[in-house]
């Protein structure tokens, strides 16, 4: 393009240099106070023992959904921050410990349980906690609109006898092995605030922290409950939960000191932090769910158990754990984490990676020539589906991937309209095995996405659920039978148990999680 000579020499070298200088000045902005190094210079002189004060900053991938307040939150649950539960399992096992209930007595026929409640507990709004609140909590979970996963168990509670304000008996339709799973799950909320709570206006419980301000999609601030019934607790002044919907940014916020704890990261995401001494990768033993390959048993030839078993042999679970989970997972054909009472190494290794055997089984079932099946998956999580697809292709099972967005995936899961195969995740394997069979929809004996029905399976599930004492030999036998039934039928082909891992700064101490992955900060503190 030619330029009038009258405008010659406008861009001289001098100006170019000036321009560069201006650019540098703009960057100089970063020089005065940097978001990258913000807060990184922590005061030296670490002191021993818990320290009072400080705000715990949590960064999480997704915001809470108030409408789903009473369900198991997938990312960062505030259940055990704002609320308490009646009992809680001791770390590492399924021994119930007192929380709002100080003692409990199960009737000999297993059809009632009597609870003694703490008398010194008040809600954040000042009202004392009584037996009525337990009644409300159970009824709340029975309400289908609350979408609570343990609704089936809650529905087993058929009546209440209130002996005194702090003593209540729950009558049960039948013996229930997972009643303490329900208690671990069921948060005690102030009934007068529940309608506000599901709209996200105000959430009132008895827990260590008080709901303060919520900016949807951005942040939630909780403050210390000064009248918490555990003396001297909590140590922290406040918890600030910020939504950072991208793993990279989440890690960056940890690195820059803007948060102490990151929630929602997968094993693959946290790889960059593994070598960094400034961070703890907190692993919790109960796992955080399972990934599985679902099979629609109404689609031929998947109605043939041998074909399903062949698929199970064909999948390289170790590679999935290594590549898709960044090593943070347990390759297992059974749903149970290692802490489960029914876990055995043999069950986990029941279907080792064995393409030869898979092919043999397929040939035996008359499909040596290969198969061509659709495979649906959640469009936000394509890795596992692609790996499964590749592995299946190696034994002659060709699959076509069908991405589904979360709502569609969920809709098809519930409407039982999944195609022949799908990959997905499920929970509820970390507690009493019965909970899995009655609360996790994929395993439901009456109605499940796999359209799998088997009277024998139904019988085993009912038996495992209806035991009076979860620790009895009969219960244990029923559990083992349930595990075998699942492994044999393979309508849900479990692939791996996800390791529950949360990166946190090294100075954050004594954070726990309950069996439903709700974070417990009663004893947590920020070391100096």
């Amino acid at each position, binding site marked *: 393009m*030619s*330029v*009038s*000579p*009258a405008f010659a020499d406008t861009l001289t070298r001098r100006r170019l240099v000036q321009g560069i200088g201006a650019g540098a000045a703009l960057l100089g902005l970063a020089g005065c106070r940097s978001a990258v190094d913000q807060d990184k210079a922590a005061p030296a002189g670490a002191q021993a023992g818990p320290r009072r004060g400080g705000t715990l900053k949590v960064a999480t991938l997704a915001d809470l959904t108030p409408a789903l307040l009473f369900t198991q939150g997938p990312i960062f649950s505030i259940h055990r921050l704002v609320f308490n539960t009646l009992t809680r399992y001791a770390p590492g096992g399924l021994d119930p410990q007192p929380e709002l209930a100080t003692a409990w007595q199960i009737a000999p026929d297993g059809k009632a349980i009597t609870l003694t409640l703490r008398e010194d507990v008040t809600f954040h709004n000042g009202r004392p906690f009584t037996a009525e609140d337990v009644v409300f909590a159970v009824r709340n979970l029975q309400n289908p609109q609350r979408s609570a996963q343990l609704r089936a168990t809650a529905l087993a509670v058929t009546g209440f006898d209130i002996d005194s304000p702090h003593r209540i008996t729950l009558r049960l339709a039948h013996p229930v092995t997972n009643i303490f799973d329900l208690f671990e799950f069921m948060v005690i909320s102030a009934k007068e605030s529940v309608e506000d709570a599901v709209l996200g206006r105000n959430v009132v419980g008895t827990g260590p922290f008080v709901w303060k301000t919520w900016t949807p999609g951005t942040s939630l601030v909780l403050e210390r409950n000064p009248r918490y019934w555990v003396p001297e607790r909590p140590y922290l002044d406040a918890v600030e939960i910020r939504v950072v919907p991208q793993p990279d940014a989440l890690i960056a916020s940890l690195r820059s000191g803007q948060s102490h704890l990151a929630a929602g990261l997968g094993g693959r995401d946290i790889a960059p932090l593994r070598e960094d001494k400034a961070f703890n990768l907190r692993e919790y033993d109960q796992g955080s769910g399972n990934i599985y390959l679902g099979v629609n048993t109404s689609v031929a030839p998947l109605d043939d158990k041998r074909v399903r078993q062949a698929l199970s042999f064909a999948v390289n679970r170790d590679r999935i754990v290594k590549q898709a989970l960044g090593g943070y997972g347990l390759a297992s054909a059974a749903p149970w984490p290692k802490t489960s009472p029914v876990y055995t190494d043999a069950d986990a290794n029941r279907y080792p990676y064995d393409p030869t055997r898979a092919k043999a089984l397929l040939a035996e079932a008359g499909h040596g020539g290969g198969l061509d099946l659709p495979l649906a998956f959640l469009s936000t999580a394509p890795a596992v589906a692609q790996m499964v697809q590749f592995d299946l292709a190696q034994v002659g099972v060709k699959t076509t991937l069908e991405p589904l967005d979360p709502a569609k995936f969920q809709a098809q899961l519930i409407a039982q309209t999944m195609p022949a195969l799908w990959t997905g995740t499920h929970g509820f394997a970390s507690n009493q095995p019965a909970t899995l069979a009655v609360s996790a929809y994929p395993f439901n004996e009456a109605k499940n996405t796999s359209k799998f029905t088997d009277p024998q399976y139904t019988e085993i599930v009912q038996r495992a659920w209806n035991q009076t004492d979860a620790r009895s030999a009969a219960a244990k036998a029923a559990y083992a039978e349930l595990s075998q039934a699942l492994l044999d039928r393979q309508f849900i082909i479990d692939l791996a148990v996800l390791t529950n891992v949360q990166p946190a700064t090294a100075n954050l101490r004594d954070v726990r999680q309950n069996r439903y992955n709700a974070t417990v900060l009663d004893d947590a503190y920020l070391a100096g």
Partner: protein
Amino acid sequence: MTVTIDKPAEVRAAIPLLAAHDLRVVFDSARGPVHAVRGVDLDLAAGEMLGIVGESGSGKSTTALALARMLPPAGRITGGSVLLDGDTDLVAASEAALTGVRGRRIGMVFQDPMTSLNPLLTVRRQLDEALRAHGFGDRGARRARSIELLELVGIPGARLRGYPHQFSGGMRQRVMIALALANRPDVLIADEPTTALDPTVQAQILELLDTLRRELGTAVLLITHNMGVVAERCDRVAVMYGGRVVEQGPVAEVLSAPRHPYTAGLLRAVPRLDTPAGTRLAGIPGTPPDLALPVLGCAFANRCTAAVDRCRTEQPDLAPVTDTARTACWVPSTEASAHPLEPIVRRAPDPTSPVLEVSGVSKTFRSRGRPAVSALTDVDLVLYPGETLGVVGESGSGKSTLARAIVGIHKPDRGVIRVAGKGRLAREVQMVFQDPYASLNPRMTVGDIVADPLHAQHIGTPLERRARVLELLERVGLDPAVASRFPRDFSGGQRQRIGIARALAPAPSVLICDEAVSALDVSVQAQVVNLLAELQADLGLALLFIAHDLAVVRSISHRIVVLREGRVVETGPADDLVAHPQDPYTKALLAAVPSPVPAAMRAAEAA
């Protein structure tokens, strides 16, 4: 370096105010360098008005711009000098020095007043800027001076706050003159200052320039293609052709006794208002030289009837032929050229039954958010077979609307347009458009363009159409072999011929020429007008000849209709109407037309 100066007797300055010597300008183009100005010598004395005339491409405007080194980016001065006051060479001056000269010593007025003012700034801001550029006083002083300047050019000072688009073309040109004179320059270069204006406005602007020159003593360099303007306003004239000055001298002498064949030809080609109707115009054969190619010898040689061998090999320099005039010709004519009047052979119109009847036609244009414009009001006219009806009027008079209404592009609001004859309207009435560049589809070959009406109206077989196209091309004076070429290969005059061939294709009985020759240079214009006259005579066409140039209209028309603001103000036989106008508007129109004959000579002719 000495410059020979031919000063008119009344100018006595020893050193010319502005003198160009051997000025050369080259433009870069896709086809290579174009030598637009090839060694021009000019000088301008204080207080005089020098006219530069020439047809498009002669280099006159380029010369004007080069004098103040105002060439567009593609152009550059490759040689020569421009001396101001005899000592400052503007060609070698620094850009800063030039900025000091421009506006302060040399003012300029350009052709198009519509685009020459910044549309976003008020007149006041633009005047202020001009004054500020040369450090004129403070804000208050500049404001006072701005009002003074506006009033000087005949605009009320109150309009200072107006934007250019709120002024008419003539008013804008006045503003432009005020701007150019803001810092009282000694030289005013006016590049076709009135070409874009209607004749009556043109006369006013020229009068203004003349007055200001006399009052302020500014020397004026007036660039124009209009011989009449030169004859009426200038002291001296320089005729340019092919990037060179071919003749220079006092106006009276050059126009009455042209020495250069080109000057003589040009003068013959210019239609004169006093030429009776039915007179053939004299065109100059051929086309101007292509300055992208090397020019050997005299640039005019291949169009010159008097050319000798030397003319084609050796370039003649400007040499004195009399005491005061110089010409660049190896064979300058020695006597004053006669102005032979040659009648056109033409049929008498057949006044029994009109071929076209327009009665009571009105047309109003409405667009959203603007006041409605009445383009035509109750227009009546008739056209007989074999007749040429001239339609004249200034811009906005409704001429084009009338033409478009007749061919059916616009639907009249009221009134009837009747075309006698059997066929469809499109077959009976055809039109030749104004713009030779826009009116031909650039994506079609000449043959397809000419055949298009035949295709559209399903006339003839493909073979017949082809034969007809070749016949038509030949008829309008084009080589039939050009049928496979595209319009871009042709000059303006040739394109107009193609347009005429297209219009003739369906053998219409009425041909409408909407300013069909206005965009052409006089020498070419004469050729096309003659072609139209011949075609009419041969084919018995009825011609509706629309133009704003009364002289051309008179030369070709039987009758003339004068339009003003959409109404017919006067109609009558061509010679009568020009000789004895009845309507004051017609009189004003006629009075505004400058005659290419110098006043002295006119007096002599009248005697």
